[in-house]
């Protein structure tokens, strides 16, 4: 899952980026409204964390502009403004959730999970399909009701594929969901993880659609 963090405060940004990375998200961090618009030009984020008091372009304007461009990522506003009217304005401008600073890291991560779940059209906190069950909160995976050990990237890759069972996901999309700007991407890396996963889950668990991408079959 790839997140965009829009936060002008250096220390908050630094700590948030580190915390989100620690929670196994791919994170990109921008510090003003203009950079945010640039980053949002390619709509490859699953979720946007937005601070409202930004230099150059206010957070709400970034949000309105993004929604006007049909941007579909979930938007979670992080702000020090706690007046009910501010919350209403934020949510009405197209935000999906609103968290007032200072917030609890656990709560932030839980809200991020909930927003991602909702965006994928799920109500269950766990993802399941084809005998595989993923618990994003605890980062645990079960196959045929047996807990299996997955590396962070393996887990994230499976999560992306399980969000849309039956649908083909391109290699590029998978790559963009797994890595932030700062992460170095080795070539063939998606293929490497697919290979490792097939070893753990069986050859046919992840199907390769030649020239298009990968998919996990829907439950029969």
């Amino acid at each position: 899952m790839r997140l965009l963090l829009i936060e002008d405060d250096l220390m908050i940004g630094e700590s948030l980026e580190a915390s989100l990375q620690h929670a196994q998200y791919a994170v990109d961090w921008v510090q003003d409204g203009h950079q945010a618009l640039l980053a949002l030009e390619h709509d490859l984020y699953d979720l946007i964390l937005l601070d409202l008091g930004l230099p150059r372009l206010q957070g709400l304007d970034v949000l309105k502009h993004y929604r006007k461009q049909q941007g579909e990522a979930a938007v979670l506003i992080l702000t020090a403004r706690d007046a009910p009217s501010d919350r209403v304005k934020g949510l009405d401008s197209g935000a999906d959730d609103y968290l007032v600073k200072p917030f609890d890291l656990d709560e932030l991560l839980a809200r991020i999970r909930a927003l991602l779940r909702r965006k994928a059209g799920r109500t269950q906190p766990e993802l399941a399909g084809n005998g595989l069950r993923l618990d994003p909160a605890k980062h645990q995976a079960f196959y045929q009701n047996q807990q299996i050990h997955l590396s962070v990237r393996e887990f994230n890759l499976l999560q992306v594929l399980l969000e849309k069972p039956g649908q083909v996901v391109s290699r590029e999309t998978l790559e963009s969901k797994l890595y932030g700007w700062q992460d170095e991407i080795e070539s063939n890396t998606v293929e490497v993880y697919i290979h490792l996963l097939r070893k753990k889950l069986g050859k046919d668990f992840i199907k390769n659609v030649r020239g298009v991408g990968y998919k996990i079959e829907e439950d029969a």
Partner: protein
Amino acid sequence: MPSIQNKLLFWLVLCIVLASSCSGIISYKKSFTATTELFDYLLQEVATSLPAHLDTKTIYQRDSLNKHIVVQIWNHKQHLIYSSNPEWKLPRYTQQGFQTITAFSTSWRIYTENRRSNYIQVAYQSSAVHELATELAIQAILPFALIIPLVLILVALIIHQGLSPFRSTAQALAERTPDQLEPLPTKKLPKELVIITRAINELLARLASALNAQRSFVADAAHELRSPLTALKLQLQLTERIQQEPQRSQALAKLHERLNRAIHLVEQMLLLARQESSLEPTNFQLHSINQLVVHAVQSQQALAQQKKIHLEAQTSPEDIQLLMNLSSMEILLRNLIENALKHTPPEGIVIVAVHEDNQAIVLRVVDNGCGIDAEEREQVFRRFYRATNNQQGGTGLGLAIVKSIAEQHHASIALLDSPLGQGLLVELKLPKNINKF
């Protein structure tokens, strides 16, 4: 203090009593004179109306009509031949006409006359005159005595009525909550109360503006405090999750960094609040401005060397003594020098210079750092405002504190282009006229 109403009543009653006493005494004196004249006339009339030829044998006749009046007649042999009242045997007084004498331990008024070798003496007791005069005097002051209670009631009513605007104003004030600081109405108020009400209104206006400033500060502060606290909390929770070294030590170091930032913000906020709450210049003393500058530069020299910045003090050739609040001016200079050092790259220059021109003592802090955009130079003095190109993450309070201190010293402050090609020049003009303080 006794109430105005009681005080007025007390003095009014005292005046009435004094006036009626005076008028009583005067009317007594007048009545006494008039009565004496009247009695004298009567004495003379009595003496004149006596028969001219009384026989020589002695007659004692008790005059039951008036015990105060004694008529006595002596013949030419000095024998008492007539006395109207045998109880009072007055001696014969040879002097003719009116006189006042004392006999039988009481005062008498007598009239004596020689007629055809007889000697007539008519006398009356002075106490009779006194009694009559007293009676007349009492009648004169009686109306006053009766009027006193009436006047008191009337005056009390008038005063009560006259003071009612005071009571209604007091009630209007008492019913207010601390938020209600709008001015009191001055229409329909007596002149005396308008003065007080206006003064109260001025005070209310000052209070309201101070309260508004305080409110906006609290609102801003609440907002601004959240950022360092957010960073602090996030970093703490992140650090808790990291198990491996050296990541954990690095996270802890960042935790300290964030804690220091929160502490710095709180300190700056307190400093500004204290600075702004001391409206009156306090602790102003004569101090050498050269010395101030040299000290300030010395105390920042270590930080400058750490950043490899050339920090220099250029003092004035003449030592200028100026009335100032030393600790405030130290804070002002420290903030300006810290700002300059913060926004000047390594190998840069920061100069603190003092000189004297015709009107003012000019203190300049010059750097060749990143400067502040011209259109932002007014705004940076606002609380919590950070310049757009400020990447250093300050509290946004430094220059607000500087401005507050400058105002306390009646000094003007301006941000100008640095003469070093790039950067900022902060110019503080302190008025020479020390009598201002």
